[in-house]
C-alpha cells in the first residue's frame, strides 16, 4: 500500500479530517475468526481457506497471544510440521492497534510495518477486531463517498462552500468535574471569533457542554470532538463504557442516574441528553452496554454565520 504523508500540508483537508475523525473501530471487522494455542496449523490453513483470510489471531478469552499468517502456513507445509500446534510457530511479538485510535494511526502502522492486517484491542486490552488494508480502504472510500455526496448536496442548495474545515478533539476524564466544560468554552470562543450568531453559538456551546458533562459524570472517560465544515458544526461525544441500558429512557426530561455529589455541583437533573437533542438540528445516539456510547449533535449555521 502506498503510504500517505499525514504531515503533508498539501493533503486534502477532507481526507485528513476523515482520518482523524474516524476510529479504528469504525473500519475493523469485529466478527473475528480466531484460534487457540492448541489449534493445529492445519486447522488454521482450513480456516483461512474457508473464510478467505490471510491471517488469524491466536487468542483465548479475549487475550491475544499471537498471530498466524499465510507465510507461517506456507513455511509449515514446506517444513512438514503443518499438524503441529500453532503455539510453537505463531508470531508472538504482535503489533496491535487500539479500537479508539484515529484511523490515521492505522495508516501510519500499515506504512511502517509490512503486515497486511493488525489485531485490534479494546480499552481493556482484549481482542475486539481485525483491521486489514482492505477494511481500511473500504471504510475510507465509504466515508469519502458520503462526504462528497454531502458537499454536492450543499452546493445544490446554494449553501456556502465547505472550505475552512476546523477540527478539534478533547479528552474528557471521568469524574473530573473541575475541568469539565473546558472544551465547550473553547469551542464557543473559537466560533465567536468566526462571527457565529449568538443564538446559534449558544446552541452549539450548550450541546457541547452537556455532552462533556455526560462524559465526565456518566462514562469511564472519552473524547469530545468538534468539527466545522462550512455551515455545518458537528459535536461528537464518544466513550468506551459503561453504555446506556435504555436510551429512550435516558432521552426523557428529568431522568438521571447522577449521584448527590454531581447534583451538589449543579448538574444531574436529567436534562442533559434532551437538551442536546433540543439544541441540535440533527441528533443521534448509539449505545451498547459494556461497549460505550456515541452521541452526535449537528447544528447548522445560518447563511450569515460565515
Amino acid at each position, binding site marked *: 500500500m502506498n503510504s500517505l504523508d499525514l504531515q503533508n500540508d498539501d493533503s486534502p483537508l477532507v481526507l485528513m479530517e476523515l482520518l482523524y475523525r474516524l476510529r479504528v473501530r469504525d473500519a475493523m471487522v469485529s466478527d473475528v475468526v480466531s484460534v487457540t494455542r492448541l489449534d493445529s496449523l492445519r486447522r488454521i490453513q482450513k480456516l483461512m481457506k474457508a473464510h478467505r483470510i490471510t491471517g488469524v489471531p491466536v487468542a483465548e478469552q479475549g487475550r491475544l497471544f499471537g498471530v498466524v499468517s499465510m507465510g507461517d502456513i506456507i513455511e509449515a507445509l514446506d517444513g512438514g510440521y503443518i499438524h503441529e500446534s500453532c503455539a510453537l510457530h505463531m508470531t508472538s511479538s504482535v503489533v496491535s492497534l487500539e479500537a479508539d485510535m484515529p484511523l490515521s494511526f492505522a495508516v501510519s502502522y500499515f506504512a511502517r510495518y509490512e503486515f497486511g492486517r493488525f489485531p485490534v484491542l479494546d480499552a481493556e486490552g482484549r481482542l475486539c477486531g481485525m483491521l486489514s488494508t482492505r477494511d481500511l480502504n473500504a471504510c475510507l472510500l465509504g466515508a469519502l463517498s458520503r462526504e462528497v455526496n454531502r458537499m454536492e448536496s450543499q452546493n445544490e442548495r446554494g449553501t456556502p462552500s465547505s472550505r475552512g474545515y476546523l477540527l478539534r478533539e478533547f479528552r474528557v476524564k471521568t469524574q473530573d*468535574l*473541575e475541568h*469539565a*466544560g*473546558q472544551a*465547550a*468554552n473553547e469551542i*464557543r*470562543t473559537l466560533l465567536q471569533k468566526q462571527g457565529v450568531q*449568538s*443564538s446559534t*453559538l*449558544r446552541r452549539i*456551546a*450548550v450541546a*457541547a*457542554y*452537556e455532552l462533556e458533562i455526560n462524559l465526565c459524570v456518566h462514562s469511564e472517560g472519552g473524547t469530545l470532538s468538534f468539527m466545522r465544515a462550512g455551515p455545518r458544526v458537528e459535536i461528537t461525544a464518544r466513550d468506551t463504557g459503561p453504555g446506556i441500558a435504555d436510551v429512550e429512557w435516558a432521552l426523557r426530561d428529568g431522568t438521571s442516574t447522577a449521584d448527590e455529589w454531581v447534583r451538589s*455541583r*449543579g*448538574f*444531574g*437533573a*436529567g*436534562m*442533559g441528553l434532551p*437538551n442536546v437533542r433540543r439544541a441540535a438540528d440533527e441528533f443521534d445516539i448509539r449505545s451498547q452496554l459494556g461497549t460505550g456510547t456515541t452521541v452526535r449533535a449537528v447544528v447548522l449555521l445560518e447563511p450569515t454565520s460565515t
Partner: protein
Amino acid sequence: MTILDAITHLGAELLMQGAGSTEPIGQIMACDLMSDVLLVDRDRVLLVTSLATEQAVRTAHVIGGVGVIVVNDKSVTASTIALARSLDVTLATCALTKFQACVSLGHYEEAR
C-alpha cells in the same frame, strides 16, 4: 440595568469585570442548578447563584451570559476568578441570600 448597576445596587464585591459589563442585561436568572441554566434561550443573562464554583462561570460563558453574582457571602477561589478572567465573564460576590438579592434587584428595576 447593567451588571455593574446590579453589583453596585447589591453592595457586591466586583472580582472580575468583563467586556460586556456595561451593556444592558437581557434577563436575570437565579438558580443553583446549572442544568436548568443551560435551558435558557436568551442573550445576556445575569446568573445569580450560590454555586461558587468554576462551573458557574463556565455555564455563564456557555450561554453567553453577562456574568455571575455569587450570593450567600460565599468565598470564590482564585482559580474561579482566573477562569472568569480568561473567559471574560464578569464575576462578583455578595452577602445577600439569593432571595434577598432577587427581591432587591426586582425593586431596583421597577424604580428605574
